[in-house]
């Protein structure tokens, strides 16, 4: 791993995108900052150091700083990544940082992922479409641990937006569900508690902004920091969308 690499002190050169939409004098540009690398330095440490010692106006987002909350997605040398878990030792001396594309810019490296993900959740109705109301007196419905593990795998998305930013389709159509959205659909589709039928799912999954809008470059799977099996998700959704029920209905129509 990275920290076993030689830690001969390097001088790191950061080229960082800058734009403050709230400042009428601000124009998009890049600023250059230099700092000395320290052992185990992550972009979380580096960016805070730059803000605290060189430019206190620099905007970026970190919350958990443990690759759990998904706040700190940004373009690191042209590739979407979670900044908190990106170690400078894994990068060349010259580091370019840009905000994630597709999402609305808040300022500098900070983007509005919250609005995009809430919109995606609303469009796909990403909640359990239940059956009966909750009965506080009743024992829980049973589920096999294998199914629970499979659902959990899909539930692990942290909504960082790296897959969306990497997606060629989402970059021209921000409403495309992209890796995170398709994964979310699959997560509910495989959940036996969700009572939606294939027909209910059809419009969500099979439209242009669903799985058939994907042109198959699969950058999403390459950049996902949680290593979600997005390729399998894609295959699962295509299989379901082309399932017997639809074919039968189409023939009948």
């Amino acid at each position: 791993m990275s920290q076993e690499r030689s830690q001969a002190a390097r001088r790191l050169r950061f080229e960082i995108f800058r734009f403050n939409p709230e400042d009428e004098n601000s124009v998009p540009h890049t600023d250059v900052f230099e700092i000395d690398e320290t052992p185990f330095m992550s972009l979380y440490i580096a960016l805070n150091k730059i803000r605290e010692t060189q430019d206190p106006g620099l905007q970026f987002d970190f919350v958990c700083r443990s690759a759990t909350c998904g706040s700190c997605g940004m373009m690191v040398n042209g590739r979407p990544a979670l900044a908190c878990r990106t170690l400078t030792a894994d990068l060349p001396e010259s580091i370019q940082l840009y905000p994630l594309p597709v999402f609305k810019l808040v300022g500098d490296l900070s983007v509005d992922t919250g609005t995009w993900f809430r919109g995606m959740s609303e469009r796909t109705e990403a909640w359990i479409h239940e059956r009966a109301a909750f009965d506080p007196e009743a024992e829980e419905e049973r589920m096999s641990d294998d199914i629970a593990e499979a659902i959990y795998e899909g539930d692990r998305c942290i909504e960082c937006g790296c897959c969306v930013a990497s997606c060629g389709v989402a970059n021209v159509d921000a409403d495309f569900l992209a890796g995170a959205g398709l994964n979310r659909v699959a997560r509910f589709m495989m959940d036996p508690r969700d009572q939606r039928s294939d027909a209910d799912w059809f419009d969500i999954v099979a439209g242009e902004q669903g799985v058939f809008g994907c042109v198959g470059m699969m950058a999403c799977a390459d950049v996902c920091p949680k290593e979600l099996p997005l390729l399998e998700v894609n295959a699962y959704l295509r299989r379901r969308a082309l399932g017997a029920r639809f074919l039968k209905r189409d023939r009948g129509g």
Partner: protein
Amino acid sequence: MIARLETTDVLVIGAGLAGERCAIEAAAAGHEAMILSLVPPRRSHSCAAQGGMQASLGNCVKAEGDGPIVHFLDTVRGSDWGADQEVASIFAEEAPVAVRELAHFGVPWSRVRGGRNHYFIKGEEVEIEEALENDGLIGQRDFGGTAKWRACYAAAGTGHAALYAVDSEVVRLGVTVRDRTEAVALIHDGSRCLGAVVRCLRTGRHFAVMAKATVIATGGYGRIYGQYTSNATINEGTGASIALDTGIVPLGNMEAVQFHPTTLSPSGILVTEGCRGDGGFLLDKNLHRFMVEAEPKKQELASRDVVSRHMVQCIRDGNGIDSPYGPHLWLDIRHLGEEHLRTKLLEVWDICRDFAGLNPAEKLVPVRPTQHYSMGGVRVNKDGEAYGLAGLFAVGEAACWDMHGFNRLGGNSLAETLVSGRLVGRRVAEHASGFALRTDTGHAFDAIAAAEQRATDWMSRSGGGPSIYEIRDALGEIMMGKVGIFRNGTELQDAVTGIQVLLNDCDNAVLRCKDPGVNPELAFALRLKGMLRLAMTVALGAEARTESRGAHFRSDFPLRNDQDWLNRTLVRWAEHDSAPSFAYEPTGLIDLPPGHRGYGSDERIEMTASIDSHNESVLREQTGHGRLESADPMGSRLRRGAWKSVAQ
């Protein structure tokens, strides 16, 4: 452009599990609810809770015989008798419902696998046959300080799964969430809370939200410990701080601060207690399991306060492992095997890889105790309503409800967020139903003007004053160094003096960023004074409390003192007063008499007053300290004497 004044029925400040669950309850009752959040809701710190949520479902062999009464006993003992026992009882009774409700919302809880299962218990690999008829029920794992396996879990991402499920209900119900906003002051008329002044963290503009009921659900104040915390960067105690500013609402037990035994060294990132629950060991530099001698009965699974103290003692005895970042100890989970680590503890696997560059199936994990949880917070009655201000509620870690007393058990806080979110949410909804929205805007405009003035003052100050980041870092060093795991009078006095210097520095600090908009330096500066004031209440409270109870350990007063200190610290501090004022109220009705916790020291100073005479004074004294009347009378939900049937 945001209007300067907005209205809603219920205003919830904070979009973690407690706040969102509370908002759901209000929305489901037909009220308009608005949630304010510093960050998109799913980024709230609830998402970082890993190992489990305590609820006495009793579904697996090692959980047999569990129930709310055993859970109540563990919680009160864990609190070192600092908890309100009625609240602990309500909590233990409703936790199973909260876990099952989360299953209904979609949480993929790990399930019992009927048949042969392999577990590690106290260093031994054991084989246990789980009943086939329990197959598919919600499973439990072991955690610290509990008599039974009780922690329900979804791998090591329990908080994440819970938060996503609860937020999906928020989306389903169409509850408005205003992310990137911060409540910077409460609006009140001296006896009733009318809403909050809010700063938009996109534009920097201030506005007011007027509400029938306002709920503080902003989480803990761990960031007053600087880098020495497992908490997220946003856990700066902003909700407790704006309550303190009123001078009317007291904060409870601010000196009760939890240190988690196993955070990654040096980053402070949490490594779940579930590692030890699933059979992990703590080792010193000689690869010796020091906890076996220190706590023969519970070993690595004593309560967090006890384990953290043994770890620091082990390091002080020269048995830590030196590193450039200071000494640490080892967590050994190698024997759990890669398959277990990559399923049931997947997030731990990821964290070890990403932040320590190691494979925990092959290598030891460097850990040390770090600030983790704030037992103290906005003091509320059992309905979650704040002392002193009608219409103000607090819930979750931000509140001092107070089921944790001086030490919270692992997995109890995640359960608290949902249990109290449901319960307080119902009270909030009732409150909102019985009250017409007041639109006397004078208080609101005054409060907006005051908030804007604070920002203007920061922006207009010039010269060569200290940097706000230096003040923040100095505060962290003081808090961890002198208000940490082992405390004493001399160091606490030093801490108070040091924090006072920082408070003065804060009034002279100068911003270097004059950018319009949110201005990240200004955003932090506006919180800094509040953090210093919270830190002062922690240090002063710790200095005054001349006993040791739970996580508050005084080397100069090492015994728990039930004669003089079976009480709760209350502190009030109006924004412009120079010093806080302290008062003490009885902890609450006592049902389980003070005794030995079953781990840690069995020495203490016994109370001489009778429990009956203590209990007689509780309602009168708490009311005298500002407690508002609860919907049901005090004590109505205490199951008196029920513990006698199960106590061991």
